[in-house]
């Protein structure tokens, strides 16, 4: 009698949380696998297996092999992992914050805002007071990208949300307006740029991991780690927020804190990703959507799983971008857009069918 009741109760939550936790492990393994794959592939004919063999047998690597694996492919892999995770996580957090699966940092202007911040730091770096630049050092561009993303998120949230309800139409339209404005100002600044700065700037428009270097990895990696640490702790609160802001407060969530932290996490993750890789779109919308379809919407596992799957997908997209037109290279933003835009339309359609508009 007791046993049957117990088992009936156990299934009531469908144990999706446990499935989500298990997915952490599976996706981590998949990421390692994809990582090896990415290290093994490239225009130069250097195979990871021959190198692993050499390492195992304690043979010396040629300097070319060393450079290709450790100075070119590895930092690129690590940067791709960081950026993919950051974009997917900021998408997941943002969708929880706006209570809508269509929110994406690229689509609603936050990446553009972060890009503007980065461009300001690069072009107007000369007129920023010296003590600020010396405090920030390598982090100057990242910090300004964060500020740009933060300001944009804050404005957007204020404009699109009334009494805890987000208007999807307002969010998308305001996002387009803010993105256009940030783009326009960025355009003006680009005119002011000198040749060296112009070269620095070109990769933003494209969105690419081609500029990967150990310097970027060491700047972005730890910061993205901090942003992820923040984001993961928002899971409980974002679940509550899904029931509406008023209800979230009624069940004991300090909603203002939650919103501030979520906006901070989104701006930090997006800002850093944009600062090191430009505007790579659609990861933030496609990845959380896939995870929700596969495992369910529970933010306690959604955020980490999105981060892992985002890293996997971006690393794979990077591999494709390197081999599809080899020896040339396609900007990765094109690949993510080709995959992402149809998914976005799909979500839009199914959202409309459910009458969420």
């Amino acid at each position: 009698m007791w046993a049957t009741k117990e088992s009936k109760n156990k299934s009531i939550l469908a144990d999706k949380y446990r499935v989500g936790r298990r997915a952490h492990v599976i996706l981590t393994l998949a990421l390692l696998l994809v990582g090896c794959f990415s290290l093994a592939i490239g225009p130069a004919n250097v195979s990871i297996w021959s190198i692993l063999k050499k390492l195992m047998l304690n043979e010396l690597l040629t300097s070319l092999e060393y450079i290709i694996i450790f100075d070119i492919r590895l930092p690129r892999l690590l940067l791709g992992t960081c950026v993919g995770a950051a974009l997917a996580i900021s998408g997941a957090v943002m969708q929880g914050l706006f209570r809508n699966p269509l929110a994406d940092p690229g689509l609603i202007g936050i990446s553009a805002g972060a890009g503007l911040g980065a461009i300001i730091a690069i072009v107007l770096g000369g007129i920023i007071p010296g003590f600020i630049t010396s405090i920030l050092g390598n982090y100057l561009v990242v910090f300004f990208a964060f500020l740009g993303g933060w300001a944009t998120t804050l404005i957007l949230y204020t404009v699109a949300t009334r009494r805890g309800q987000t208007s999807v139409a307002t969010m998308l339209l305001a996002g387009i307006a803010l993105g256009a404005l940030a783009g326009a100002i960025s355009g003006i600044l680009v005119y002011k740029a000198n040749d060296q700065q112009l070269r620095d700037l070109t990769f933003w428009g494209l969105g690419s991991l081609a500029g990967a270097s150990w310097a970027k990895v060491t700047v972005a990696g730890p910061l993205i780690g901090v942003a992820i640490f923040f984001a993961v702790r928002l899971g409980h609160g974002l679940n509550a927020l899904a029931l509406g802001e008023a209800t979230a407060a009624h069940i004991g969530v300090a909603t203002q804190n939650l919103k501030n932290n979520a906006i901070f996490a989104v701006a930090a993750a997006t800002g850093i990703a944009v600062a090191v890789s430009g505007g790579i779109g659609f990861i933030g919308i496609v990845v959380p959507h896939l995870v929700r379809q596969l495992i369910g919407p529970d933010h306690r596992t959604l955020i980490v799983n999105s981060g892992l799957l985002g890293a996997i997908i971006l690393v794979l997209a990077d591999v494709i971008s390197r081999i599809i037109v080899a020896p040339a290279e396609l900007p990765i933003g094109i690949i993510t857009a080709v995959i992402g835009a149809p998914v976005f339309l799909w979500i839009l359609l199914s959202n409309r069918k459910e009458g969420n508009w």
Partner: protein
Amino acid sequence: MLQTHDVCVEINKKKILKNIKFDVPAGKITALIGPNGSGKSTLMRAISGEISYQGKIFINERDINFMKAWELAAIRAVLPQNSSVAFPFTVAEVIHIGLRNSTESSTDHLINDALDCVGLLSLAKREYSQLSGGEQQRVQLARVLAQVWSPLIDGSAKWIFLDEPVSSLDISYQLEVMNIMQNYADRGGGVLTIMHDLNLTAMYADNVGLLHNGKLLCFGTPSQVMNDKILSEAYSCEIKVNKTPKNDKIFILPQATNT
């Protein structure tokens, strides 16, 4: 005991509530009635700590302005007039999310019992957003009940605040839900509910507060508050209050105006 002392609410310079003062005892059902726009939901939102107000509100002798969100969540649960759930959460998950402070094993029982209580156990794994309006309302009620499942905490009452809990229910579930409230009150909990159905109010409420234009017109037992004159004036239409011949229960028949 739930007490309000001269509560005033102003939104956009407009006075929505004016000097609301009443004491609501625990262990009883207290109903708030009044025409559309009279301020019932606003009053409930003030009592729930959702909006700012002038005056004072005490729950169990504690000023709610000095209580944290989680402290309030432990002693009162709120059913809003409208609620939506974003993302494809299941019914069981919606209730689970409402129980932030419970331990894993008892949580399952709680969700089970709460859903059983509103007759929705069979829908536990269904997606919330695919339920009918009435089913969603009952899920939300189950969530509220689960949050404050045992009506007493260290001898003092827990509270449920319900904004039109039966508005989209069929007649049998209306009675079912009123019985749930009755049961909660009988076991010592406090129940404050906004009602539009005057007959159900007369049948179940121990106290009735009538709001009109942001003022509390009167507060008392159903037979004190619900008479022809007061109701007709408050709702600006002719209302006839009758008594059943057998046991003097109040019932109300709206009078058609064009015949």
